[in-house]
């Protein structure tokens, strides 16, 4: 038994030595990496560490942080009803817009790919533009305006579906569907571009071989040829979809107001914004951020594992 342990230690030692030799030989690599690594650590890793640290404290920036153990988490889960509403809303948004946005991005990338080339460029622009057009989603304030000057109200009133204007963005029952629509409208972003580009890169001879092998319709072709080829893009697109669907905050704040009626459009990130920027309870806000980090990383892990099985 002891010889076994000694062997294991020896092996470890050898591996470290080899790694060290390799590192020494490639030391110029670390020089190249250094500027980025320092900044990346400072602005992406450090925030994660500090937010975990502050999540166990009471910290309002002015006074030094005071250690309070798990109190923030306990309050969040057991006392803060608004947080539970926010979790419910975020979950609803993520569950609907995440997968749906992902599928729509892929679906439309796929359909656009079948178009003739002259119109393809234009189609990509139309689908991609909403996600990069700054705060153009503010136009939905006008479309769904609560008086009869709003387009949607006017349309429905002209068609005789409703008699009086509806308060789409104030009525808790209608805020969520409107928000989900707007978020889906903006969901064709980086992942969509990756899909469009990935489809263009698939070797055409594979499709031709498919015709010979008797692939009869577009769905078979999608399943047997396109999807397996697109796996790397699908993995990347999933990361983007998770990012978008969990970080929703600007759209609800701009459309439904802050805070929204009955907190109907209150998401986790809006809650974080509330505690971090308006109440300056940094410890509490950090606890929210930490929980969100954890859920997102977990979610990413699950989805990546599921997607690895595509086409195998």
């Amino acid at each position, binding site marked *: 038994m002891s010889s076994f342990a000694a062997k294991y230690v020896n092996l470890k030692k050898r591996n470290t030595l080899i790694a060290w030799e*390799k590192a020494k030989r*490639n030391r110029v*690599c670390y020089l*190249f990496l250094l500027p*980025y*690594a320092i*900044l*990346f650590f*400072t*602005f*992406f890793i450090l*925030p*994660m560490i*500090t*937010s975990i640290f*502050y999540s166990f404290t009471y910290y309002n920036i002015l006074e030094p942080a005071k250690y309070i153990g798990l109190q923030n988490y306990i309050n969040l889960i057991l006392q803060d009803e608004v947080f539970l509403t926010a979790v419910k809303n975020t979950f609803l948004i993520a569950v609907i817009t995440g997968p749906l946005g992902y599928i729509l991005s892929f679906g439309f990338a796929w*359909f656009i790919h*079948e178009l003739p080339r002259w119109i393809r460029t234009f189609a*990509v*622009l139309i689908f991609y*533009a*909403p996600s*990069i*057009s*700054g*705060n*153009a*989603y*503010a*136009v939905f304030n*006008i*479309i769904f305006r609560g008086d009869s*000057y*709003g*387009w949607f109200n*006017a*349309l429905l*009133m002209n068609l005789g579906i409703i008699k009086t204007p509806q308060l789409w963005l104030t009525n808790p029952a209608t805020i969520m569907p409107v928000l989900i629509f707007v978020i889906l409208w903006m969901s064709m972003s980086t992942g969509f571009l*990756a899909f469009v*580009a*990935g489809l*263009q*890169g698939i*070797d*055409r001879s594979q499709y031709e071989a498919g015709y010979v092998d008797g692939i009869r*319709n*577009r769905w*078979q072709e999608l399943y047997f040829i396109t999807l397996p080829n697109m*796996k*790397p893009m699908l993995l*990347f697109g999933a*990361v*983007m979809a998770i*990012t978008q669907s969990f*970080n929703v905050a600007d759209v609800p704040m701009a459309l439904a107001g802050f805070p929204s009626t009955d907190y109907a459009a209150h998401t986790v990130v809006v809650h*974080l914004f509330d505690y971090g920027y308006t109440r300056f309870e940094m410890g509490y806000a*950090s606890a929210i*951020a930490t929980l*969100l980090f954890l859920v997102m990383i977990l979610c*990413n892990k699950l989805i990546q594992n599921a997607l690895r099985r595509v086409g195998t």
Partner: protein
Amino acid sequence: MSVVANKANGHRMKGTSGRKRRPNRSIAGDIGVWLLLIIVAIIMALPLVLAISNSLKPLNELFRFPPTIFPIHPTLDNFSDLTVTMGQSWVPFSRYLVNTVWITLLGTAGHLLIASMAAFVLAKYDFPGGRTFFSVVVVALMFNGYVTAIPNFITMSKLHLIDTIWSVVLPAFASPMGLFLMKQFMEGLPFSLIESAKLDGAREFRIFWTIVMPNVKPAWLTLIIFSVQGLWNNRASAVIYSEGKKTLVYALQQIQAGGIARTGQAAAVIVVVMIVPIITFVLSQSQILETMASSGLKD
């Protein structure tokens, strides 16, 4: 290597596709796809069209029942009103523009250099820690906006960066998306290119600067566009307090928030803010797509 091969194929396909009908496509299916695409494209485009047409409407048409999709008497009054309001602002408006342009230029240039250097060694050298580092960067793709903002605020106040443009520029240098795309694209470069340069006695920096960088121009451009889009839309309201250091988008949105009397100008602001990222995308679409073709995550 396979990425390069695929890419070459992609180009050939684009070039020679005389578009023979694919044998396994039903006509009904094609019609269905076209219809679906047209309907959804209209839904996608309509809000942006409305935003533009609103900015061209005189005030009396903005409050009209029923509202019209296109302006009846199109006018540029909203834009000229906007310039008047800008002219009356307490801080000269050109100041905001200069701030934004400066932040965008500096942030993009630094990001391009720093991220490309890191991407180069991550893509082309096998050294201990490199792979781990990259997988952390991939996870960091998911962090954005408010989630890192609070701890970042604390860090930056300790580093005395608050209320300087560095509080916006330095995090932009380290944007994970840029490194990610650049690294994935550089992986497609053939190793022989680097090996032959090594045999000629070139050092790492020379290889990077004279061989790798000129060969990844599409990735450059993509990095620049993404960085410009991010920085142009950056309000930076949380980390910059002095009015004279604020950004254009922030100032424009202040005008936009000016209530019902500014409805016309607010419509003009939306158009001014959205037009820059859209135009940059239009001008560089093919290069961006070429870069995105290598964006996939491998196991």
